[in-house]
């Protein structure tokens, strides 16, 4: 039964939030929508351009390439971070004095600001003076993220995995910790092996937190900007120019407000759509 106290005055409490959201989100969004359907040649002179910018953006090979890179990046980091996070969570102790130590160690990378992470890896991976870059080269592997697209990609991905796998670990660990002992005991009695315990108990019980983890990691990685920008600046060439970097280049670097606005709206809609898809798919699986 729903627990609800009816009191019309409660609406007044919500009002400040409504106003805040309006100024914070709706007004800028509407400005963007406004820009996306007009063209400006000089300050203050605007022409109606309809959906031209949207068509241009969608047809531009530059946008398609950036979108492709973006999807690739998000796909790769999800494919690494989610299983890796679960695996680490499974190996963590369930009780005892090591639990807080593990949790603090895991939380450390999450406490470092994005730009610092980018700067750290920027130096860490430099082939001539960086500890990582120097070591890898010393091992005879040709590695230089400032020159080779492959090296740049590996570095960006390694950096993201280092920074964000902890989040998945912590969420998965919370999910695992909530499984009552009776389940493990029953599985032992039923003669279930380690894999069966994971497949039929641990994974289903982690379902909810993993949905949240995937959603958070998707949205965050899809909009990633600071770290790769600080690390590679989108290079070498355009090889690590993700959507957000491209967008900023366009809007601020080239001051193409119309196309940039159209692009950001498309970007926003893609994020929204994919998030919704993820969410409905994962929750439906849970109910069905």
């Amino acid at each position, binding site marked *: 039964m729903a627990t609800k106290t009816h009191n019309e005055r409660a609406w007044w409490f919500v009002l400040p939030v409504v106003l805040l959201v309006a100024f914070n989100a709706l007004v800028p969004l509407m400005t963007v929508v406004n820009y996306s359907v007009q063209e400006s040649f000089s300050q203050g002179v605007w022409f109606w351009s309809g959906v031209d910018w949207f068509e241009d953006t969608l047809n531009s090979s530059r946008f398609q390439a950036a979108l492709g890179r973006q999807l690739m990046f998000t796909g790769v980091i999800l494919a690494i971070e989610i299983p890796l996070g679960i695996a680490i969570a499974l190996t963590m102790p369930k009780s005892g004095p090591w639990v807080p130590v593990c949790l603090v160690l895991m939380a450390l990378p999450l406490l470092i600001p994005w730009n610092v992470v980018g700067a750290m890896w920027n130096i860490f991976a430099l082939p001539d003076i960086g500890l990582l870059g120097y070591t890898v080269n010393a091992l005879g592997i040709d590695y230089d993220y400032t020159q080779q697209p492959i090296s740049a990609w590996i570095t960006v991905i390694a950096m993201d995995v280092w920074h964000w796998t902890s989040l998945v670990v912590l969420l998965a660990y919370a999910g695992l910790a909530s499984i*009552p002992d*009776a*389940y493990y*005991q*029953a599985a*032992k*009695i*039923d*003669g*279930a*092996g380690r894999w*069966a315990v994971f*497949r*039929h*108990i641990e*994974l*289903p*019980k982690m379902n909810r937190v993993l949905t949240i983890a995937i959603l958070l990691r998707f949205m965050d990685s899809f909009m990633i900007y600071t770290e790769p920008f600080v690390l590679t600046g989108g290079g070498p060439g355009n090889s690590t120019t993700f959507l957000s970097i491209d967008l900023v280049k366009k809007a601020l670097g080239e001051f193409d407000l119309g196309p940039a606005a159209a692009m950001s709206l498309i970007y926003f809609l893609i994020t929204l759509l994919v998030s919704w898809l993820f969410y409905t798919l994962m929750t439906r699986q849970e*109910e*069905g």
Partner: protein
Amino acid sequence: MATIGLKNLRHSYMPKPLAPEDYALKEIDLEWQDGGAYALLGPSGCGKSTLLNIISGLVTPSEGRIEFDGHDVTALPPDQRNIAQVFQFPVIYDTMTVYDNLAFPLRNRGVGKAEIDARVREITAMLELDDMLTRRASGLPPDAKQKISMGRGLVRNDVNVIMFDEPLTVIDPHLKWKLRSKLKELHHKVRATMIYVTHDQTEALTFADQVVVMDDGVIVQIGTPVDLFERPAHTFVGHFIGSPGMNVIPCQIENGRAVVDGVPVATENAPGEKSGRMEVGVRPEFVTLAAEGIPARIIRVADTGRHRIVETELSGVKVHAVIGEGASIPEGSAHLAFDPARTRVYADGWLVGGSH
């Protein structure tokens, strides 16, 4: 199925137990027959769950052995003991259908497909789950889920014992008696050794042929429901079983007779010599308000619909009497009379002349 022997079991959760209070189980020595229905009954903290976990292998006893059919299994882990256990909260595999949940323990043991199918269908029919075989187990109500948990134990024909750990905790009150009687019926059909752990006397007495009553890590009585009600071996059993429980009244022993408040009380067992704390035990059903007897003050009368429970007090001790619908109840004070055939003397809690 197997005979289960518990030989001189003691268990403590402390690394170095010294005093008897350090032991959660003090000294357990008993044998359970193959195919019997047993209940472990006692209040929370009495050690019944510890005993259950020792039998299932989740806890290793500090001292003593567990034998299945004469084989020492004390050192074996749970999966090698061939036991089944139903927990307080239903444990089901969310991703599987009802059918797969029941087939799971058989598949893990490499049983053939045709045999699995036959066993699962037989057991689900018994449990009245056969109309939901293809449904996902996660969406079912608690009573159906608990039946699935039971079914996973019942499908296996290699189990030595099926154990139930307060299995009706999450079941709606009006469905409890159905499941309770279903269990009894299942035992009649499959004749497996079953051990049922509970703090609820109705559940224990309804299910079991033999009830083991535990208090503070000690077995205080093993007996049939009739034994426990009619001839409690310990005042704890008398108090714990029955509602309200048995009246326990301090007494003196004078010339080989029990004396309460200066009034001699005839008892079924001979009181013998005074040894320790002496008490008279009589169930409220066998206390009457009479013209003569032990004077008592009437405190309260509660109407249960079928009869009235009169709460009286005699020198600081509360004594309950169950009085029929028609009988009149005096106001203020009354005299209590005890049925001599149902009144017994206890020394330090134990029945005088009992087997203890």
